[in-house]
């Protein structure tokens, strides 16, 4: 059995409730979500790249980042340069993305970037019939370190019974502020730091 996460330890230490740090984290996320977004109107640039999780060479994924141009946006959202946005990296810890066994863990990380952190949300859509499966919801991500090293997201996703074998499109969105799940579709480019979309094949 895997070791308990900090969230699980906090749950146990508070005897089934939320710890003070969790409450603080949630408050910050809720306050960030409460702020009005700046009107869009920014241009969008799609940048394609290839990245990998440095400590887990078992997977190489196709990455799509979505960034606004600096000169069109208000000062508060200006991007300093093309290297500011991180690349989202996804890895199947017990296999390959084109053959990830049920029960495996999916690890997320951010590679590079000079961003000030944000919130990572990820889900998988079956290519055939079936329901959307949520992996992460507004998982808080720290600001990039000075050395732009890999930032591994502390919460991994388990491919459980709710995700039967098949082909899925995995989406991951790094947003500046927390976004309710049903508002993801209307997330503006100004609020989007990076995006990832790739194919995942779950095998028995």
């Amino acid at each position, binding site marked *: 059995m895997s070791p308990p996460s900090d969230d699980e330890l906090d749950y146990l230490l508070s005897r089934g409730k939320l710890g*003070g740090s969790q409450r603080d984290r949630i*408050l910050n996320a809720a306050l960030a979500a409460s702020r009005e977004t700046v009107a869009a109107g920014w241009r969008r640039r799609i940048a394609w790249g290839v990245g990998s999780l440095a400590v887990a060479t078992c997977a190489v994924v196709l990455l799509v980042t979505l960034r606004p141009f600096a000169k069109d946006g208000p000062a508060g959202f200006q991007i300093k340069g093309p290297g500011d946005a991180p690349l989202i990296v996804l890895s199947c810890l017990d296999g390959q993305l084109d053959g990830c066994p049920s029960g495996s863990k999916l690890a997320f990380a951010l590679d590079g970037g000079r961003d000030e952190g944000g919130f990572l949300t990820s889900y998988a859509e079956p290519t055939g019939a079936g329901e959307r499966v949520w992996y992460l919801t507004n998982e808080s991500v720290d600001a990039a370190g000075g050395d732009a090293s890999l930032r591994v997201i502390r919460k991994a996703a388990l491919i459980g019974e709710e995700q039967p074998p098949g082909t899925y499109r995995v989406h991951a969105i790094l947003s500046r502020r927390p976004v309710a799940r049903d508002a993801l579709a209307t997330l503006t480019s100004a609020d989007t730091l990076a995006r990832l979309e790739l194919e995942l094949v779950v095998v028995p």
Partner: protein
Amino acid sequence: MVLDEPGSVALFRAGDEEALTTVYRACVDQVSRVAALVLRACATGGARTHRELAAVLPDVVQEVFVKAFAPEARRRFDASRPFEPYLAQIARNVAIDHWRQLQRYVPSDLDHLIDRLSLEAEPDAVATDDFADAETVAVVNGYLASLDEESRRVHDALYIKGLSQRDAATLLGVDRQVVRTKEAKLRKGLRRALARAGSFTTFGLGSILSKGSG
């Protein structure tokens, strides 16, 4: 009751952070209670464990406040109705939504059970020994009983009172770094206690990730 002070609704609708923080602090316990109750009701008789509940609960609570504090939701809020039941209803829906995504479906009899749950449950309703399986609860109780006085005070501030690190530091009259360090030690200590009890093997995410490159 929250939002019953003159002008408080206007400040809430305007997104005043102090007003939102006041609402959050007044309601977070209720929201987490409702979320935990609904998630446990959904888990009744199932194979799901406290580990999944622990992983989902903060996400659910966060989603509730993200929804409730979103600009459009604040503007739509009907101030003629009390805020707490409105928030409890969001908590119930979000918790069921999260559980459905874990389980794929919630049987209809569970829907009925959830409907009957009091959305204003007493605070102690959740603070019982049913937050995990009996073996885990015994480990947690034993670990907490073994804490020294200083650790116990930090635990009380962070995990019983639910204070932030900063507020806990103020309450205890120590530097915030001291609280942060103690919090890390509390987690580490419990992790070790669970490992000794055989609840899991001790390896970290780093070694999990490294397995992939081997």
